Every structure is written in C-alpha cells, then in structure tokens.
C-alpha cells in the first residue's frame, strides 16, 4: 500500500515535470497543429481523396507517441543530474520507480493526445462517426 502511494507520488512529480517543460510542450503543439492544419490540408489539394480526414487521426497518434517517448529524456536527465539517486533513496523499489515512469509517460501521452483529439474533433466533426 505504501509502495503504491509512493509510486503514485513519483508518477505525479514526473507528469507535472513533463507539463512544466514549456519549450517541449510548445514544440509538440507547433509540430502537431502545423502538421494538421498545414501539411494535411495542402496534401489534400494534391490527392484524389480527402487526405486531411485520413491524416488527422495519424497526427493525434503521432502526438501521443512523441509525448510518451519524452520519458526517455526525463530518465536520462535524472540519471545525468543525479535525481535518480535521490529517487532510489526513497522507500520505493526499482521496479516501482520504473512503473512510475511508465505510468507518467502513458498519462502524459494520453493527456496530450486527448487535447489534440479535441482540436481534431472541432476541425473534423466527422471523425466521431469514422
């Protein structure tokens, strides 16, 4: 029980760090929104089918992938700056620490792509029926 609550605390810290990294959030938002609103629309003009509708869910998934993948950078940063050593001194097993990172990566990806999905649904309401 104690391990579980500590795991959740580390998850919360890791997740809040992801959303506090403003340059990363700005980069991801710019990349994904410009992909949706520029690349998707222009390629649609060059093809015989509505590529935009096809492309938008792909961008949402790519956004989730990129946001979740950022956990690697955070773990590397923790290792290089000694934060991992601090984590290991907490009453938390190594497996629970790994699980906390995985959980925060998953939640971060989900929350970020959820926002993208909302934008996509506003732009293409048809996506609900697809």
């Amino acid at each position, binding site marked *: 029980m104690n391990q579980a609550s500590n795991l959740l605390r580390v998850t919360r810290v890791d997740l809040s760090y992801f959303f506090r990294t403003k340059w990363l959030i*700005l*980069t991801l938002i710019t990349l994904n929104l410009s992909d949706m609103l*520029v690349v998707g629309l222009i390629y649609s003009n*060059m093809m015989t089918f509505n590529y935009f509708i096809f492309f938008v869910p792909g961008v949402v998934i790519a956004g989730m992938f990129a946001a979740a993948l950022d956990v690697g950078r955070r773990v590397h940063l923790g290792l290089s700056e000694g934060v991992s050593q601090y984590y290991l001194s907490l009453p938390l097993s190594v497996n629970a620490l790994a699980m906390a990172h995985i959980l925060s990566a998953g939640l971060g990806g989900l929350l970020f792509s959820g926002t993208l999905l909302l934008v996509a649904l506003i732009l293409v309401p048809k996506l609900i029926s697809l």
Partner: protein
Amino acid sequence: MNYLRISTLLKFDLRESFNSALWIGYSWIYFAFQLFVYGSIISRLIVTVNNYFYFYGTGLIVLSTFNIASWSGRRFVESAHEGRLRYMLSLPIGRREFFVEQLLHGVTVNLVRTFPPVAIVLYLSKLFSVSSFLSTLLVLTLVAIGVMGLMISLSVIAFKSFDIYSAIVAALSALLIRFSTINYPISSMNSIYAGASLSNPLTYGADLLRRAIGLDSSLLVNQDAALSMLLALSVGTLFLGIFFISRFVEGVKSS
C-alpha cells in the same frame, strides 16, 4: 583576417565533428529511408505533380541542409552552455575570425553530409551534369550560410534563457519547414499559406535547388527572385551574426 588561425581552429572543430562516423552514417540512412520508403509511397498518392518523387527528394536535401545548419547554430549555443565558448574566446583569434570559422565549419559539415543525398537524387533523376552538380552545391551553401547565420544570431536569446531559445528555434523551424515549398509546390497552397510561403527564405532555397538540378520549372517560384532572396538572406544574416558575436558574446554564460 588571419587565415592561418582560422584554419587551425577549423581543423580542430572538423576533427571533432567527424569523429563519430555513426552519426554521419545515420543521417545518410535516414535520408535513404525517407526517400525510398515515405517518398515512394507519397509520390504514388500525389496526382498534381509529375515525378513527385524527385520533387520530394530535392526538398529532403534542403531539409537536411536546414537541420545541419540548425545543429551548427545549436552547437554554438551549447558551447556557451557548457562553458566551452569562454575557452574559445580566450584563444588568440578575433571575434569576426571566430564567426567566419564557425560558418566555414558548418558549411563544410553540410557539404560532406549532403554530398551522397545530392548524388543519389541526381543519379536517379538522370539529370547529373557537372554544372547541375556544382550549382546544386552552391545553392546548398547559400541556404546553409543563411540558416546558420540566423541560428547564431538567435543565440543571443539563449544567453538569457536556453529553454526560451530551444522553444523559439523548435517552433520557428517547424513553421519555416511547413510554410515552405520543401514538400509541396506553391500552386497547391491556398492564398494565405502561399503568402506566408513567399515570405519564407526556405521556399526560395528549395525552388532554386530544383532549378539547379533541372526539375520541371513550371511549379517553381521565379528564378531571379529566388536567387536575390537567397543572397540577401546569406549576406544579411552573415553581417547580423558578425554584429551579434562582436557585441554580445563577451563573458556570456547560457542559463
């Protein structure tokens, strides 16, 4: 301008940059993967451009140049962040000479790394000639100088905050690439996007490269305008970079 000092520092920097053959190999594999997998698939879907595969390939070369030039600018900022810049500034080399050395380093790395992609595209498109090859390298050098000068000039922001610099460069790069003719011709854009694209130097770099290679010019922007824009960008950012380096770089420590 002391050329001996420039060449000594340049040799040192180049040795360091070409130390990792793995990264150079990776950039070539990435290019081949993008061209032969993504490029060949997307070119089957595009119906408005003849031989979109080569259009995409040339765009990919400009994109590689942009990324390498951005890396050179970022390398300069990171050297300030890691304290290496202070050591460089203590060397018996003038600030202008130092800037020229940084520029030459970026251009050399760019030419070496884009050489195989250029050769592949020219060979596959059967448009290889000595003049097309040389003019392609010239256009890429101009693009590299322009982008590098811009990135080094932006490094002034990094001396205040490295995170803000990273955010601005990442967002600017994403927008510059998407609002340009790197991946699609200007005729396929709506009027708003086309307007933004026409004020973007990468549009002129990409289209001038396509002309240099000898691709269909009906979809490209005017040649004279492209050349003037690219020259203006290179010369402008060159002087801007020299100005910033000589004014703001003393005693900096990127935070």
